[in-house]
Structure formats: C-alpha cells, structure tokens
C-alpha cells in the first residue's frame, strides 16, 4: 500500500496548530484504510453513478473545434449533479467522515459550488453541515447561498479581510481547531495540510481516469493538450494525474489573471512564480508581499479568487511536467459569452478561463478541456460585467 504523500518535492507539509495534528493523523489513517477497501469503493462508485450521473460525458464541441481548427473535446463536469466537479470530492469525504464517526461537517466555499456540493452530500448522508463563505462571495453567488439553505446547511458569513475565499478557509480551519473531535472539515480543493492535497486528488482523479478512457475510445489517441482551470487546482489535478506518464500530453493549468499579473490584482500564484510560502497549512506557491504577509487575490471568478495553490501543482510546475498560464477577467468573460453562443453551454466563469486560454492559443491537433462547472451561478455577475464593457 502506498503512503499518503505529505510532500510533493519541497511543497506541502502540515503547518497547522498542534490541536489539529491528531485530527489530521486520524483522517490520514482512515483514508489509508478505506482507499482500497472494496466496500467503500463500491458505495462511493454507486453514488457517483446513480446520484451524480457519472461517468460525465466527453463531448466533441463541433463549433468550437471549427473555430480553433482542430478537435476540442470537453469533459462535462458541468453535467454532474450540483453542476460542478466539486461533488466528487464532497461525497467521498462525507462518506469518509461517516466512517470515522463524525457527524458534523464544515466546509468553505468561494463560488458556492463546493458549499453546495458539501451541503448536498450532507443532506444525502444525514450529516450536519456548516459552510463558511465570505460576504462578498455571498453577494456574488446569491443563488448558491439560497441553494445551500434549502439543502439544510447553515451558511456562516465571514466578514474578515476582503470577505472572499481565503478568509472563508481560515474561518473553517478555526472552527475545526475548536471542534476537531466532533467535526470533519471537507476542504474543497487540493490545498491545506496533508493529507488533504492527496485525498482530494485521489477523489477527483475520476475525472481524468474517465476522460483518458473516453478519449482513447473515441479517437484512438491521447490529446495533445489537457487544459483545466486552477484556483486551488482540484479539477486540474484530478484531470492531470492519470496522464502524468503520458509525456506527449501537455498539461496546462489556467489561473486567474484578474486585471493582469502586473496589476498585482490576480489569482495566479503559480504563473507569477513569486517566493513560495505557507498558507492554510501547506507550503506552496502563494501571493504574498516581501514581508511574508499573504495578499488578497482578485478574480472575477469567485472560485479562482484565492492567493494559494495546491502543492502538487507547484511541484508539477517546478518539474516542468505541467505549465501554468493566466488569462484575464476580460478574456474569461469573452470566452463565457462566446462558448454560450457557439455551443449552447454556459460555462462557469472558472471553467471559462480554461476555454479562454484554448481559444487564444490554438495549436496542436487535439485538445481536451475540463469544463469543470456550469455558469448559471455566474449569470448576474457576468451579465453586469458584460454590459459594463
């Protein structure tokens, strides 16, 4: 049995208060015990199939392909129940929490997709659910706030800082420090202290496993480029991991360029490649000032509005195995509108970043893009921005 990684090269680790260390050890032991357990796997697989709707389709986006001059396949995570890839992780972790006897769940959310996924998993499995969300994000993602309430979750508003995802994660961790003995923290991305980056990756790799088999079956070959958006990076890591040994497949993670990397208002720590640092329990690429204070990220997409990144991504970048790029708010918005008209698919603003990069960088013969979520939640914000321009 392989161990759960604590480090990815120099990145990762467990930079958390002592109070949490036994909780992390318990979680790691539980994951090791169930990861290869037939019963657990069957239970999760059945839910992913019958409840989530997996496998998610691989769709040849014909008009997009025509525009780009080569075939573009979309991995349709937007068609999952709850409308994004987040449910894969939330269900897996909620089942795990039940196994270790924790009936209270906390989660953080930015765009609200992870919060909705956690609230959904908790409703299904009869668990108590508290979701921390910055009040700015609650404003930007109102439909998801209402959804969580309907699902029986309590949304705890977070007023600290600029009231977005970073502060929501911090608030969730503080809750966990206080309630670690009764509570499981379902972190929404491949960030945080070990074992979370490995745990979330393992639960999200279903995206890449399916996509790899589907593209081989459909085209008889592997894609030239695999493209996914990166906030913390969970849909990207889930997509990338099964392709790591396919050295001819380029792995491209698209971060939030916000108002431009030079403006300082962005969410692209991997692309900006400043000094790495410690945020939310892990050493990884972060956006920080010279003194080591973490800076606020900026993105039109609440899900990418995060100054940190998954440690495995930082390592893949350093190894040269994956490449990280950024697209601006503007480019993402344009892609959002364009893909809606071209394909009849309204992508999440997060996923629109991956689409935008592909649209402005046509190359190769075959693209596979992770369409990580649907954009209904973004309508108000995106339409207002599009009208403004």
């Amino acid at each position, binding site marked *: 049995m392989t161990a759960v990684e604590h480090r990815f090269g120099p990145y990762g*680790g*467990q*930079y*958390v*208060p*002592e*109070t*949490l*260390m*036994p*909780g992390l050890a318990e979680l790691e032991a539980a994951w090791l015990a169930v990861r290869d357990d037939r019963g657990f796997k069957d239970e999760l697989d059945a839910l992913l199939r019958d409840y989530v709707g997996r496998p998610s389709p691989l769709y040849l986006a014909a008009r997009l392909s025509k525009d780009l001059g080569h075939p573009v396949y979309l991995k349709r995570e937007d068609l999952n129940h709850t409308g994004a890839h987040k449910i894969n992780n939330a269900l897996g972790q909620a089942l795990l929490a039940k196994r270790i006897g924790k009936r209270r769940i906390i989660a953080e959310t930015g765009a609200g997709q992870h919060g909705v996924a956690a609230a959904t998993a908790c409703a299904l499995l009869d668990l108590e659910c508290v979701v921390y969300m910055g009040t700015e994000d609650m404003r930007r993602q109102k439909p998801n706030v209402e959804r969580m309430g309907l699902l029986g979750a309590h949304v705890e508003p977070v007023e*600290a*800082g600029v009231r977005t995802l*970073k502060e929501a994660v*911090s608030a969730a*961790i*503080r809750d966990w*420090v*206080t*309630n*670690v*003995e009764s509570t499981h923290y379902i972190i929404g991305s491949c960030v945080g202290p070990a074992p979370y980056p490995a745990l979330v990756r393992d639960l999200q790799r279903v995206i890449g496993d399916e996509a790899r088999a589907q593209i081989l079956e459909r085209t008889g070959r592997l894609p030239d480029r695999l493209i996914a958006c990166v906030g913390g990076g969970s849909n990207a890591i889930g997509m990338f991991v099964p392709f790591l040994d396919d050295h001819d497949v380029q792995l491209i993670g698209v971060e939030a360029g916000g108002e431009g990397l030079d403006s300082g208002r962005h969410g692209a720590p991997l692309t900006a490649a400043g*000094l*790495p*640092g*410690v*945020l*939310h*329990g892990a*050493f990884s690429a*972060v956006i*920080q000032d*010279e*003194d*080591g*204070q*973490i*800076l606020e990220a900026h993105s039109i997409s609440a899900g990418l509005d995060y100054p940190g990144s998954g440690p495995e991504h930082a390592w893949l970048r350093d190894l040269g195995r994956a490449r990280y790029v950024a697209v601006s708010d503007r480019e993402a918005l344009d892609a959002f509108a364009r893909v809606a008209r071209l394909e009849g698919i309204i992508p999440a603003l997060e996923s629109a970043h991956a689409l935008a990069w592909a649209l402005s960088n046509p190359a190769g013969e075959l693209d596979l893009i992770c369409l990580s979520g649907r954009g209904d939640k973004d309508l108000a914000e995106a339409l207002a921005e599009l009208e403004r321009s």
Partner: protein
Amino acid sequence: MERAVTGAIPGVERIAEAFSSARADGRRAALMPYLMGGFPDLATSAEIGLAYARAGADLVELGVPFSDPLADGPVIHAAGSAALRAGATLPGVLEVGRALAERVPVVVMCYANLIVTRGLERFADALVDSGASGLIVPDLPVEESEQALAACDERGLALVPLAAPTTPEQRLARIGAQARGFLYAVSLTGTTGERGRLDQGLATVLARVARHTAVPVAVGFGIGTPEQAAAAAAAGADGVIVGSRLVRAAGEAADPAAAVSELLRGFASALAGPLS
C-alpha cells in the same frame, strides 16, 4: 556556542532564570503577558510592553502580526490586522522587542510563513540581534520543526513547542523531549480568546504534559481573569500566559499602557502568594 551579542546570556538560560526566580520569590507561577507588536501602532505597543515589565511580567510573549493567523480567535486576529494596516513589519516589531528585552526575556510568537519567507537562518539571526530569548511558532508542529530547532539551538534561542488537549501520549513525549525554555500548554481545544471558565480537564492535561518534559510548563489560551490565572497555577502550571484580555484592553482604552498596567497588576497579585 556562538553568541551574537557579546556577554549576552543565551535565551534558553534567561527563560529558565525567569521561571526559577518566580518560584524563588514564592510566587505561584510566572506571569507572561502577550503583546501584539505594532498594535495599535508600534510606539504604543512599545509603551504597553514596558508597562507589562513594570507591572510584574516575568517574561513577555511578543506577537508578530500575520495576515492569516489560524490559531487566533477574533480579538488577536483583529489586532493583528489593525497592526498590519498601521504599517507593522517584522523589523519594526523586533525593535519593540529590543527595548523590552533589556528588562524581561522576550519570547517572539510568529507564524511560519514570516519565517519561511525570510529564510530560517536570517530570521533566527534577526531574533538574536533583537535580544529575544525564544520563539513560538503556532503553526509549526514537531513534524515540521526539525530545522527550526537546529537553528534556534545553534543560537541559544529557545524554540518553545505547543501541546494541546488533543495531543496523544506518544506525541507528548516527542514534544516534551524537544521543548526548550518552556512548553506551551494550550488550555483548551480551540483558538485564542477569553472564555467564561477554564477547561475542566486542565489539571489532567498539565500533569500529562509535565510527565514528558524537563522544562517548565506555561498555560495559555482562554485565561482572561486573575481567578483563572490562579486556578491555572493551582492546576500545576509553572507559568501563565494572558493574551486576548490584555489585547482587548489595549484596543479599547484611551490610555492603553495604563489600562494594561492595572489589569496586569491584578494578574500578578493573583499569582503572588505561594500555593496553599
């Protein structure tokens, strides 16, 4: 062992001395107030620190403000954010420590990223240069602290680890063995901040911790009244750390130094007599 400042006593010895002289004076426990460096501004925090020293502090825990303090509750979190808005930086806070270290041993409390970003060696040198005696890193568990411990040991700085009520026996042994100066026992499962009552299991936690270490054990988190401080001493603490109550006073009072002086005298007198 090299000493950066000629004639300076290594931090570990200075801390040991502070605990033993509190005992020798017949007091129940050493008193260690927490100072948020740069709150409400650098100059005022320097005055608050000196007021601590004059009002009976045996040691001072000097907090370096950080943008994302995961171990802190709302009062210290807000004070840290305010200090950063007022322009506090690590060098500025260490200057506050330098003046304070002439009077009492200073133990710097700093989150890991500020250390990692600067580089461990450079950070430790700056600490020694400022006259600090020890270092507490609330998000650096023993699994991650090997290099920090070596850097501190080389310089005679005490790297003070934390133990929590959730810490199992085996970990306590490891934490106790690598404790320098003192061991910081977290009184409750949670973040910093005042509580209505002390955690009932405190005596048990302290007894457990003490079995695994040769250094004094100081209790912090959730101690906001002189009665709670006395109770912590009675439960077996060698030292008592008071944070949020004092930081709150510093934020609320028109004359922060005077306000914290009065409060600290109350804590000092609660710890004045020997244990009955």
